[in-house]
């Protein structure tokens, strides 16, 4: 059992982080907290993707080692697939990180708009103000 | 002119409506003439078509709509054409009748408005009004369930707008009620149509017979019946009818009766013809419902004092006659039922329109405040009495042979279904006396007896017969009714060509 848990520990970590993020997004009353949760949530997904790319057994970072020009000249025979980590998830996650930070940026701008209007960032207070003023 | 005759009949009102819409500022008050004349033209076409059918021809016109399942085929046979003819004639007559009436309503509702707005109101009535003949002709002539649904669904829309724009006190609310009931009915209709399609893969009425014996047939017929009984305001679906009839402008009152009653034709067309055997199960329940509606409607009518509501409640009981005729399922009763349907709508048009004239001239709606009008308004009185005779089935009106045939059939069935059937038949026949009672009682109250001295106060002017433009169409209808009453063979031959083919006693 322990073996089983340890053998997939990064998956467990990603699940825990995802749930922490999700909880903060749904359950926290402070809007900034929600955004912090959103960041955690998104980085959990990124962690999951990065974990997909991992190869055990001596694989290294996906940057070609050795003489690039020589390899370029002699074809691909020397490149061993097993010795490099799968680069595709990394590519995807570069995009995802940028997307996540862009979302955060937009969300923070909206947050400032909300603060200008309601002078508070607590969900329950905002809802109360909305109810009172009919806005 | 003779080619695409049925298509012309359906399309002419639509074109006239469009022309009025586009030229409403120029055409102004002449919109009534345009509408009336276009309807006269299509009535003429229908007459021609009827003559052709009378000589044994069946007119079929095929128009492919965008897909193969939904077509726009039109069928003119001995059943559809006479009904279409009478309805169209009524529409034409009412178009002329309405010309003065709408002026009066606009003045009453909107007060003094400037010329442009006035023309807008006035033409709007005719734009909407022409939706009725379009819808009725469509319902009568099409042979495809979806096309029929389209026309059935089309009808409540002009009804809604006319009622909401030109009706009486509660008009907007009542218009909404009417629309809701219409949509409810239409929902059942489309449901049944789609169930049919899922069973037989076709929307054609002629293919409906493939449904015979199908286990789903019961449900399909039931849904169709619910849809159509809602339209016909048969107990227990009658709640909308008295309110609606009380508030609408009387110039479309006759059409409202048609609107409700055309469902009887649809029952014959889509249920009795193709699915006779499966329909027989419903015969008895429908007889009972019909009887209940008759009695309920008559008693309700007796209690009315409002002259418009009075006519409205009588519609409920009259509608049930047609249903009774259909439910009895004999050749004579079916023919009688259809014939009574025509007689009733003519009688109702006259009666309602006369009520409209009364409201128009006297400005009051309560019968008890009227009285002794006969001396001032002789022609109106005559019209009212003729209307009353038409509803009660006195000779020489067309409803006399109609009721005769109807009850011959009903008694035939009644005797076969002893004892329940016979009781129903006898009760139904007795219910006629109720009709006689309430129609003539009203005539007495309104036109005879002592005149109310205050009545001149409400009136817009001197109390006298209205302009000829309002009377002539009604007199014409009365004339048609008397002709058909004296020579019922004309229309019965047409009916018999079609209905006679059914394997019924």
């Amino acid at each position, binding site marked *: 059992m322990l073996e089983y848990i340890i053998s997939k*520990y990064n998956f467990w970590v990603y699940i825990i982080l995802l749930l922490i993020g999700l909880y903060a997004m749904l359950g926290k009353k402070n809007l*900034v907290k929600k955004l912090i949760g959103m960041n955690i949530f998104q980085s959990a997904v990124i962690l999951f993707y*990065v974990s997909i*790319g991992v190869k055990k057994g001596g694989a290294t970072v996906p940057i070609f080692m050795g003489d690039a020009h020589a390899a370029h000249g002699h074809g691909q025979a020397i490149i061993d697939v097993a010795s490099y980590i799968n680069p595709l998830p990394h590519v995807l996650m570069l995009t995802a990180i940028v997307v996540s930070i862009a979302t*955060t940026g937009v969300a923070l701008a909206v947050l400032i708009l909300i603060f200008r209007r309601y002078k508070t*960032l607590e969900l329950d207070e905002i809802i109360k103000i909305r109810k009172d003023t009919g806005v | 002119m003779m080619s695409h005759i049925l298509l012309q009949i359906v399309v002419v009102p639509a074109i006239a409506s469009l022309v009025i819409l586009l030229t409403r500022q120029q055409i102004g008050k002449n919109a009534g003439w345009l509408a009336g004349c276009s309807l006269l033209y299509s009535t003429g076409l229908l007459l021609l078509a009827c003559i052709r059918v009378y000589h044994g021809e069946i007119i079929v016109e095929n128009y492919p709509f965008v897909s193969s399942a939904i077509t726009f085929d039109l069928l003119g046979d001995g059943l559809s054409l006479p009904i279409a003819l009478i309805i169209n004639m009524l529409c034409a007559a009412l178009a002329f009748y309405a010309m003065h009436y709408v002026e009066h309503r606009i003045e009453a509702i909107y007060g003094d408005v400037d010329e442009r707005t006035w023309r807008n109101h006035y033409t709007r009535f005719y734009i909407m009004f022409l939706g009725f003949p379009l819808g009725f002709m469509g319902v009568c002539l099409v042979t495809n369930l979806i096309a029929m649904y389209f026309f059935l669904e089309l009808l409540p829309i002009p009804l809604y707008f006319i009622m909401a724009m030109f009706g009486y006190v509660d008009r907007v609310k009542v218009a909404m009620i009417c629309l809701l009931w219409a949509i409810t009915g239409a929902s059942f209709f489309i449901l049944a149509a789609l169930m049919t399609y899922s069973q037989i893969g076709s929307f054609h009425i002629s293919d409906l017979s493939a449904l015979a014996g199908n286990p789903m047939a019961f449900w399909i017929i039931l849904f169709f019946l619910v849809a159509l009984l809602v339209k016909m305001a048969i107990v227990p679906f009658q709640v909308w009818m008295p309110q609606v009839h009380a508030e609408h402008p009387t110039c479309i009152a006759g059409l409202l009766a048609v609107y409700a009653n055309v469902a009887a034709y649809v029952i014959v067309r889509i249920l009795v013809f193709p699915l006779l055997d499966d329909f027989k199960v419903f015969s008895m329940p429908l007889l009972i419902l019909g009887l209940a509606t008759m009695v309920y409607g008559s008693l309700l009518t007796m209690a009315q004092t409002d002259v418009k509501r009075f006519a409205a409640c009588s519609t409920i009981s009259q509608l049930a006659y047609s249903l009774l005729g259909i439910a009895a399922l004999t050749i004579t009763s079916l023919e009688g039922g259809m014939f009574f349907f025509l007689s009733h709508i003519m009688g109702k048009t006259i009666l309602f329109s006369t009520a409209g004239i009364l409201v128009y001239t006297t400005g009051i709606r309560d019968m008890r405040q009227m009285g002794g009008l006969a001396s001032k308004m002789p022609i109106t009185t005559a019209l009212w009495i003729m209307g009353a005779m038409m509803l009660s089935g006195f000779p020489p009106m067309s409803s006399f042979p109609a009721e005769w045939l109807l009850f011959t059939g009903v008694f035939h069935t009644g005797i076969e279904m002893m004892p329940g059937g016979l009781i129903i038949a006898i009760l139904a026949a007795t219910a006629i006396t109720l009709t006689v009672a309430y129609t003539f009682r009203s005539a007495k109250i309104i036109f005879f007896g002592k005149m109310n001295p205050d009545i001149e106060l409400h009136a817009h002017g001197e109390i006298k017969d209205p302009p000829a433009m309002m009377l002539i169409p009604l007199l014409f209808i009365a004339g048609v009714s008397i002709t058909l009453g004296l020579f019922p063979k004309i229309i019965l031959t047409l009916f018999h060509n079609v209905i006679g083919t059914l394997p019924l006693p």
Partner: protein
Amino acid sequence: MIWQLDIILCIFVVICAIAAITVKDLLAAVIILGAYSFFMCILWTEMGAVDVAFTEASVGAGVGTVLFIAAVNKTKRRSKD
């Protein structure tokens, strides 16, 4: 890669995440979020995703924290939960 180190990093990450959403001072929470991102970077480097780690370090931990601080600065620092 060394799995013991990985696990320690993972624990740090989780602790930072929990701290970030529980601290009531928003500025502190944001700083902890920056630390969280930083630990995440190390974790990813450990897993061989150097490019991702660099981007996260610059964009996530850097720009993100700056944006958050700017926003918190413009609004309220205290949170009720």
